[in-house]
């Protein structure tokens, strides 16, 4: 049989699915909306409800709502009390992050595509917002350029493909350096951090620091050593059995109490400690799931090769376990991002805390709806992007892995 014929057979038998049937609009309506009397009643009721809802929401959004409360306090919502003369540092950090997003997209494509395009969209939308100041527009254009430069470099340097994951650690340290100062730049104390910036910092630090701790506790829980296992189990179960708010509260009150006299840490750091303690227990459970999915034969095989327990864990078990854990880790990141709002209840001015102060300002009385819808929308955009990414990730990881 010649290859041409083979190709032909291949192309005709490629799809096991029947060809897609195109429905006419009438048939589509009949099939999807009016296939029985019950369905028809349901459709009509829901349609009336939806129209009413959309009409009210649209009416409120475009005519009733006083959006000037957002534009007047936009700086507060974004960076809180961060000193204005030091704002260039936040912008520089944003440029850096943009550069790394660009790099990742340029080098890897795949999953980073969603992130790249959503960030680009957010910048473009922000630039055309009417109340954005000229200098902010300038910086946003800079961030776009930085994205582009990143993509360029990522595509030209093939070596980056391997190291871009680790490069994010560098990016994290650099961003911390620019925002905090580390004593080299004039120090900006954490209690002036606020708004969206504080929310993102809290979430990033909670995720980054709780990851290694969580992995350690997961290994402890899977360990054969009874003392280590018991302590890990107690830690994980106690932390998972109590609400985050009590842990945050505990961190606020107990951290100063437990430190030697004279040592003080400010509110934001205490909240970070609380978030890390909380999140690491949840990450430990996610990782435990991954550890359980690694077949025991792998451990036996590596022992047979003469690898020590430590080497088996680090080189054989963990890489496989963590790979399986990635999707649930993204889910955990989403929930910790949402949970950072709880710091508003212990008096921190994260984006929700700022929202509360803005609505209590007599100048903006009665604008609760606008403020909370805005805050919810911000979170929604970020979390929705992350969850779409996670779904894509899950699909791409499950290919060839059964």
């Amino acid at each position, binding site marked *: 049989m010649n290859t041409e014929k083979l190709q032909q057979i291949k192309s005709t038998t490629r799809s096991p699915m029947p060809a897609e049937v195109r429905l006419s609009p009438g048939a589509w309506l009949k099939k999807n909306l009016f296939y029985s009397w019950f369905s028809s009643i349901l459709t009509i009721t829901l349609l009336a409800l939806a129209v009413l809802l959309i009409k009210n929401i649209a009416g409120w959004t475009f005519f009733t709502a006083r959006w000037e409360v957002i534009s007047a306090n936009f700086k507060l919502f974004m960076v809180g009390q961060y000193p204005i003369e030091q704002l260039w540092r936040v912008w520089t950090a944003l440029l850096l992050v943009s550069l790394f997003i660009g790099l990742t997209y340029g080098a890897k494509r795949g999953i980073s595509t969603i992130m790249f395009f959503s960030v680009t969209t957010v910048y473009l939308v922000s630039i055309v917002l009417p109340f954005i100041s000229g200098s902010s527009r300038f910086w946003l254009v800079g961030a776009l350029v930085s994205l582009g430069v990143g993509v360029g470099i990522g595509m030209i340097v093939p070596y980056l493909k391997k190291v871009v994951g680790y490069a994010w650690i560098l990016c994290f340290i650099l961003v911390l350096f620019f925002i905090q100062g580390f004593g080299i730049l004039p120090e900006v104390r954490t209690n002036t951090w606020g708004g969206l910036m504080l929310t993102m910092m809290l979430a990033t630090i909670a995720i980054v620091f709780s990851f290694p701790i969580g992995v350690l506790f997961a290994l402890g829980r899977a360990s054969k050593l009874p003392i280590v296992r018991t302590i890990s189990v107690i830690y994980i179960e106690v932390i998972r059995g109590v609400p985050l708010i009590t842990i945050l509260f505990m961190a606020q009150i107990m951290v100063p109490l437990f430190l030697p006299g004279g040592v003080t840490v400010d509110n934001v750091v205490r909240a970070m400690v609380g978030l890390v303690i909380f999140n690491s227990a949840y990450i430990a459970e996610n990782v435990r799931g991954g550890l359980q999915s690694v077949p025991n034969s792998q451990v036996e095989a590596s022992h047979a090769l003469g690898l020590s327990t430590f080497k088996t864990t680090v080189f054989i078990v963990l890489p496989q376990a963590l790979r399986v854990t990635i999707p649930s880790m993204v889910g955990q990141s989403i929930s910790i991002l949402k949970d950072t*709002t709880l710091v508003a209840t212990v008096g921190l001015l994260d984006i929700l805390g700022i929202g509360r102060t803005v609505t209590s300002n007599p100048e903006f009385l009665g604008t609760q709806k606008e403020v909370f819808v805005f805050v919810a929308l911000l979170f929604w955009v970020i979390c929705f992007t992350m969850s779409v990414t996670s779904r894509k990730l899950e699909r791409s990881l499950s290919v060839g892995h059964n």
Partner: protein
Amino acid sequence: MAEPSTHKRPPFWRNQKYLNLIWQLLFLVFIIGFIVFLATNAMAGLNRAGLGLSFQFLTNRASFPIGETVVSFSPSDTFVRALYVGFLNTLKVSIVGIVLTTIVGVLVGISRLSSNWLLRTLSTWYIEIFRNTPVLVQIFFWYFAVMLAMPRIQDVNANYGFIISNRGFVFPWFDANSSLWIWLALLLVLLIAAFLTFKWKNKQQIEQGKKLYPSLWLIGVLIIGIGVGYLVLGEFPASLSLPEHTGTGSVGGYRFSPEFAAILFALVMYTATYIAEIVRGGILAVPKGQIEAAEALGLSSSKILRFVTFPQAIRTIIPPVTSQYLGLAKNSSLAVAVGYPDLFSVGSTTLNQTGRAIEVITIMLLAYLTISVVTSIIMNIYNKYTALVER
């Protein structure tokens, strides 16, 4: 073992058994050292503040009011009583929330698989919107932007017994009569009797191969029993109480305070999205062949759902739903943000008044742990009950 002369025992520092022990002891010493370090610091701090570790304060007068209570409470009661009241409030939100969340979640979960496009799309949007926004933002929204923005109670009318104002929701509810307990006992007896009749008739039906209507018998026994009970006792266990508007308030019916309503709505709307996704996943996990086979047997779609899909789906559904229930109970602590006096809120007031940080926090942690443990035990029992029986 084969040749002891050439096989030397390894020295004890290479023996895995000893090594394990040594590593564990080192670890233990490290942990204990860390705890001792923290504890000495804490004791030193407490001594500086002039506070020893003691639970004596619990019997002191609380001297703060609690706005909403299940059992009676006055500022002259003790701190123990106050914490107990807070605990009951937490339970109230959690239990009502779990029941409502389950109903909404299951309905939305089934809707997402509906063959009606509009229903499917709307429920998808509901889930995407409510699960991707923080629950605390939702609580604030319901409380500050919805509940407190309602018209004043002076400006609203009672509609069919419902009064909706910035003082909360009032709706018709039942008032217990004096014979409530007798009725409950009677109902229990009736239920058992009806169930036994049903079993008996069902057995006869199978043996004789005739249609004997066992479910009709069941309903019949219940109706006759209730009728006899009413004739003897002369009243029903509870009477309907319709709320009435009194100008600046209302009497009768049952009232959800704005704080309670806000926290309840937010928790239910938020948690239901997760339950809906779990229910959808559980239903999808039932092999398609089973449903096709049931269709081929001629079962109606409601019977397929009841006898084929749901009993199998429930097995995959229960474990993740348990953790959602636990999540809801834990999230109810956010009620403090809108001033609903739950355990956490009362606890932090107690802490502010007494300065007893370690003691109060310990009590709070233990209380929440108890709730978590009890919930998971109940759900595990149920899980065992529905689990697939295998060899």
